[in-house]
């Protein structure tokens, strides 16, 4: 089950970060990524798996400009 929503890093303590998903906060393990407070991450089963661009769907914007 892959999540479609990114979360925002609110606080970092060692390997754990508090991540906000539209008003729901959760401690997430960040051992697999290098991140700073304020950045967005994609989370899978309690772990951040990769950093995410915060501008929503830049591919879509690119697509619209192209056409």
């Amino acid at each position: 089950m892959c999540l479609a929503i990114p979360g925002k890093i609110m606080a970092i303590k060692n390997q754990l970060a508090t991540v906000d998903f539209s008003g729901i906060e959760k401690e997430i393990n960040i051992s697999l990524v290098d991140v700073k407070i304020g950045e967005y991450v994609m989370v899978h089963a309690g772990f951040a798996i990769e950093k995410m661009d915060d501008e929503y769907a830049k591919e879509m914007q690119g697509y619209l400009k192209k056409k």
Partner: protein
Amino acid sequence: MENKNNKFVELEQGGGGNMSNELIFEIRKFFPVVKNWKNIKDDGAVFDLGKEKLVFTTDAFIVDPIFFPGGDIGKIAICGTINDLSVMGAVPIGISLSLVIEDGFPKDDLKKIMQSIGKISKETGVPIVTGDTKVTEKGKIDKIEITTSGIGLASKIIENGGAKAGDAVIASGNLGEHTVALLASRFNYQTKIKSDCQSLTKEIQSIARYLTACKDPTRGGVAAVLNEIAEKSKIKIILNETDLPFAKETVALSGLLGIDKFSFPSEGRFVATVAKKDAEKVIKVLQRFNRKAKIIGTVTKGNGVWLKTKLGGEKKIEVPRGKLIPRIC
């Protein structure tokens, strides 16, 4: 899968979906005597008193955790029974309260739970008129179980099978927030969302005469209750994805845990159908109680409950299956 062939009751059968219905059917078949009672498959059974109708309902409550943001097991127990009477169009007149308490249960917690029952009783004017209290050995039950029964009087019963093609579908507020509060505390999420647990008696009484069908989406959530209305009324319900009654937090938690938000129980909301011409008027009244009350869909000919997606496709909203378990892969 040999022992799945019906020898044991399974946890999934308590989830409010198809499997619960099967279990209830198995139990009910032993009770053929019905006499003059009607609506025995609805939230409450109805007995015709002549001028008025008596509505009778009962419910057992187990909640984990027993205290949660926005309420506790006591508040749910009294509101649940008041609401089951209210959605039938009845004014509750008395409630019974039975407690099964585990040995060693903190008196302070018991006091808090009784206080919240007392508070709702006072606010709604519905008295607790009789009850029973048992204590069991440690480990025989989980902390506390509460059963409430209630009676109410109605001049007109709101039938679940009364929705008609052309009606509008309404929600009395954002749905599923009770579940969000509970799941968040169970799985260590933090959120400002509180349980929606509350009595619905005043809200429903204010607009009862307009409703063609009404249910409170507790077990099985809005998915289960709208399917019940669609089936009993022999109509099709179409919800619009752009008008769904969910807070952004509900959508997020549903995604995070991989549990369908349509199956999230609420403990202080109702969904109903009303004639299209009355819909705006009804919503205006309901918004005095909860500004998130709104029209969420329409009733047409056909069957089942469908979601018109943002992309323009139609997706079937099924009666939930099994229990609410978060999934991973």
